[in-house]
């Protein structure tokens, strides 16, 4: 009779034990969770702290970069003004010497004066090219729709060197519109055209052809000349940064480097094909404008 009661009480005892055990386990789990949460909060705080540090670092680095750009600008400014002034003086004094005292000099003396002037001019050109290079590097080249046809015809109209009787420059057909930066592209084409008319055999009239072809997404412009051409060993080097070729090319290579840098910054490419005595074909490739060939 009591058996059931005893059994029941034992049962109850067991149950209470189990409940207590469960409770203890639960408490342990809660403690664990709390610990985990605390750890998570610490990690989050650390992460936030780290992000803040990183942000600070970015701000710091940006400021440093801005400072460098500012210094570069100051440097270019100083180049324009300070380095060019003595050259202007050299060139002008030798010219005045020639004009005022040329009668007292023999041919060798006059030749020396001419060489002084030419050297000063060449250095002036080099300084301007280096200046242009620093501009190409730091300017914000925003890409826009550029009507290459209008741009090139404008360049040809503005410079007598590109017109009859000095040179014959022909644009074949209507050039397509591309994605580029108008100012940078003007600089690139001017450089290529100047080069195309500059290096011709004596007593040869420069003849330059400008054409374009569509190559998939890109438009390739060709500037073909009847110049002295470029030996194969120089072809690969011509667009390399400040590569020194033969003396007759002095000063030109910074110009080519500027073209390459500018075109690359506009997402394009440059290249050249040439053979000595057979002229050169420079090309410049840029992304076609959205509506392709303008009507």
């Amino acid at each position, binding site marked *: 009779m009591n058996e059931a009661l005893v059994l029941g009480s034992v049962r109850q005892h067991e149950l209470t034990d189990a409940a207590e055990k469960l409770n203890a386990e639960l408490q342990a789990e809660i403690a664990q969770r709390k610990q985990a949460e605390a750890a998570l909060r610490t990690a989050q705080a650390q992460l936030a702290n780290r992000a803040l540090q990183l942000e600070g670092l970015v701000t710091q680095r940006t400021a440093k970069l801005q400072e460098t750009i500012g210094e570069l600008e100051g440097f270019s400014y100083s180049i324009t003004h300070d380095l060019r002034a003595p050259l202007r003086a050299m060139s002008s004094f030798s*010219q005045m010497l020639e004009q005022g005292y040329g009668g007292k000099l023999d041919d060798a003396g006059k030749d020396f004066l001419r060489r002084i002037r030419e050297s000063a*001019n060449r250095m002036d050109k080099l300084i301007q090219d280096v200046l242009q290079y620093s501009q190409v590097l730091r300017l914000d080249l925003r890409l826009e729709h550029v009507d290459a046809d209008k741009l090139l015809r404008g360049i040809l109209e503005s410079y007598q060197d590109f017109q009859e009787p000095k040179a014959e420059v022909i644009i074949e057909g209507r050039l397509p519109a591309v994605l580029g930066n108008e100012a940078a592209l003007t600089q690139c084409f001017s450089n290529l055209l100047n080069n195309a008319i500059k290096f011709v055999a004596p007593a040869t009239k420069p003849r330059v052809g400008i054409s374009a072809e569509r190559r998939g997404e890109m438009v390739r412009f060709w500037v073909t000349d009847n110049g002295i051409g470029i030996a194969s060993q120089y072809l690969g080097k011509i667009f390399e940064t400040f590569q020194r070729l033969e003396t007759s090319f002095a000063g030109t290579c910074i110009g080519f480097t500027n073209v390459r840098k500018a075109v690359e910054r506009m997402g394009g490419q440059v290249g050249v094909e040439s053979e000595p005595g057979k002229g050169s074909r420079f090309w410049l490739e840029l992304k076609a404008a959205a509506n392709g060939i303008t009507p």
Partner: protein
Amino acid sequence: MNHQPILYVEDEANDVFFMQHAWKQAGILNPLKVVTDGEQAVQYLSGEGKYAERDEYPLPMLVLLDLKLPKLHGLDVLKWIREQPAIQSLPVIILSSSNQPQDIRTAYARGANSYLIKPPHADGLMELVASLKDYWLGRNQMPPARFPD
């Protein structure tokens, strides 16, 4: 015919020499008054110190202004001129070796009347001075004096 001077603000001694040479070659009768930094330009124009002697240093009819000058930058000289009621419409021609768009833009924004790049040779300067004589000293109508003589 009165020959009011032209004030030439230039720190580069050689450039001053070439300008005086070209001035003579061009046969310009207006005297060329030279000051060699930005502060001197301000002193000359405001008649301070020795420049108070207006018989010796009369107010110029035109200013030829270099940009990169010691003490006070050419663009600041220009700004100062435009802030002076007595000389605010004095014609100012910038003559600089800088072809930087930023310089040219700021010069015009601050009221330059013309912006010329220093020619790289003596010949070029001769041509520039000849055209200056023809245009600025010949054809151009200068702002009338504020009070009739």
